[in-house]
């Protein structure tokens, strides 16, 4: 049981944007995809979500994604996109309730009635149910969407099968408190038997919360493993094209990267 990604390649027009990526997202773990802008992180997540045609094979809990009808895939995984705008005046509750559309949340019908409120509470938005989605700030909208995604796979394990959260930059417009809240949700989901695959930009959050790091560079997976294995000076400096020193405090034993330790190597062309 896992999401097994085997030799995944994606072409957009003439450009090959992903080259034979192999990765396994195991239940019980948080896997973070990191890499510079344009390295193919989002494309990778979209392909695994089933949004893009791809070569290679993706198996979700042993079943081939390509032959899976949408309703079946929806029972296995929920996807948080980067940004969602709505053109109609939906209330926050109505947006969160969309997550229950497929009817495979795993909660009992009685529980399901209160599920939007519960999910909003988890993302620290209690009391926002009656507000209009369009009136919220970007960070609040992002958390509403996460609440919707949580509703879809409320139980991390359903019928003995693990379920997965695919998150594209879930903390990109959040303040530090809510970054921690959201990453805690991901960690709890994994600890309860589900799997999480998230695109992250913050290397320190990644180091703190990820069990597995997949580092991408120019459409290829250049390293995967625990944060300690992947975050070394040479690799991080190469991939992000600036000199970076990774520090490791003895107590936490999780690596960190300070902007003070990074230097951009500007090519002096003038």
């Amino acid at each position: 049981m896992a999401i097994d990604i085997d030799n995944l390649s994606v072409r957009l027009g003439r450009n090959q944007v992903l080259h034979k990526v192999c990765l396994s997202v195991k239940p019980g773990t948080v896997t973070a995809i990191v890499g510079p802008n344009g390295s193919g992180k989002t494309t990778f997540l979209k392909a695994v979500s089933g949004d893009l045609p791809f070569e290679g094979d993706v198996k979700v809990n042993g079943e081939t994604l390509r032959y899976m009808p949408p309703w079946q895939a929806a029972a296995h995984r929920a996807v948080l996109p980067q940004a969602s705008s709505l053109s109609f005046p939906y209330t926050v509750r109505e947006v969160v309730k969309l997550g229950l559309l497929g009817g495979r949340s795993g909660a009992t019908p009685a529980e399901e009635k209160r599920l939007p409120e519960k999910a909003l509470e988890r993302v620290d938005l209690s009391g926002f149910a009656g507000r209009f989605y369009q009136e919220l700030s970007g960070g609040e909208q992002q958390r509403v969407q996460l609440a919707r995604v949580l509703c879809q796979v409320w139980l991390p394990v359903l019928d003995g099968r693990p379920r997965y959260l695919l998150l594209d930059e879930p903390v990109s417009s959040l303040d530090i408190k809510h970054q921690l809240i959201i990453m805690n949700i991901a960690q709890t989901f994994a600890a309860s038997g589900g799997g999480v695959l998230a695109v992250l930009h913050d290397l320190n959050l990644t180091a703190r919360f990820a069990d597995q790091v997949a580092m991408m560079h120019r459409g290829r997976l250049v390293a995967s493993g625990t944060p300690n294995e992947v975050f070394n000076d040479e690799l991080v400096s190469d991939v992000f094209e600036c000199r970076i020193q990774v520090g490791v405090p003895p107590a936490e034993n999780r690596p960190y990267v300070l902007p003070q330790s990074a230097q951009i190597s500007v090519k002096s062309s003038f």
Partner: protein
Amino acid sequence: MALRDNVASVSGWRWRAEADGDRSARARAIILGLVLLYLLLFLTSLGSGASDTSFWSVFSGWLGGGTDSLPLRDRVVIWDIRLPRVVLGSLIGASLAVSGAVMQGLFRNPLADPGIVGVGPGAGLGAITVIVLGNTVLEPVIGIFGIYALPLAAFFGGIVSTLLLYRVATRRGQTSIATMLLAGIALGALAGALSGILVYAADDQELRDLTFWGLGSLAGASWAKIWAAGPIILAALAAAPFLARGLDAMVLGEASANHLGIRVQRVKNCAILTVAAATGASVAVAGGIGFVGIVVPHLLRLTIGPEHRYLLPASALLGACLLLVSDATSRMVVAPAELPIGIVTATLGAPFFLWILLRQRGLLDL
């Protein structure tokens, strides 16, 4: 926070959502209210008209043993003149409003309307072709279909232009709203030009038919027209509720709808077919009746919210009510003559819509 409060008080003109954001109870209450309003309008329309056959004589006639007990003249007025008109008006009002709501859900844009984005003109072109060429070039073909030729032609005109529009505006599963509107305008212009060629070739009687047809009218309502257009419209209306779930999911975009477990392509196909069928049939029997498809869903979204399982039935009801009121108005204003109903809906609808836009200015991005 101050800014937020400010926005809330400015937007206080529209109905606020309940504190818990659940508007389903209100939606059900309003739908029930619309059912009652519709029944009232139905009976009132049946009892009012150019002749003095009144509401009460209809009503007491029914109570006292069905329409058979009415005088023959009243029976003819009710059964052959007013009832077809009321039934047809209801069908067309419901069909226009539901088409608008579905189209707006499909394109995720509250301005999408079969009339504005070229579907209406496409259906119109089909109908004009039959009116002008039906007696000459196309006679052998038209002869086969009889009275069904006009609605069928409008139906296919509607389908073809809807498909063209969707093809042009959609790329890699993403529909571009700007492209859609521009393509709709282009398609409307093209259909208009082709109609122009036919108008150029038309004789005086055909011209008169065309002009009145273009303004929209329920004046020619008859059971034959109902049998021609009714089944298509009813089928489209019956299909609409099955689209509700998919359209709700599509509001987040096609990719997210797919993630939620919706067969997006199937929803798109059904929605396109529904809109083309309903618009095609309506335009064929009643001509161009504008603004129902935009005003009705927009108004309802402000009161009961945009969830399609309530929006679609409520649109059908309010659309039917609006058309019955407009029809009554069109008969009263210049009685005993009558105005084409398209003039009435546009005269009432357009200023009202402008007013909504003014009130909403700067608050919510359309």
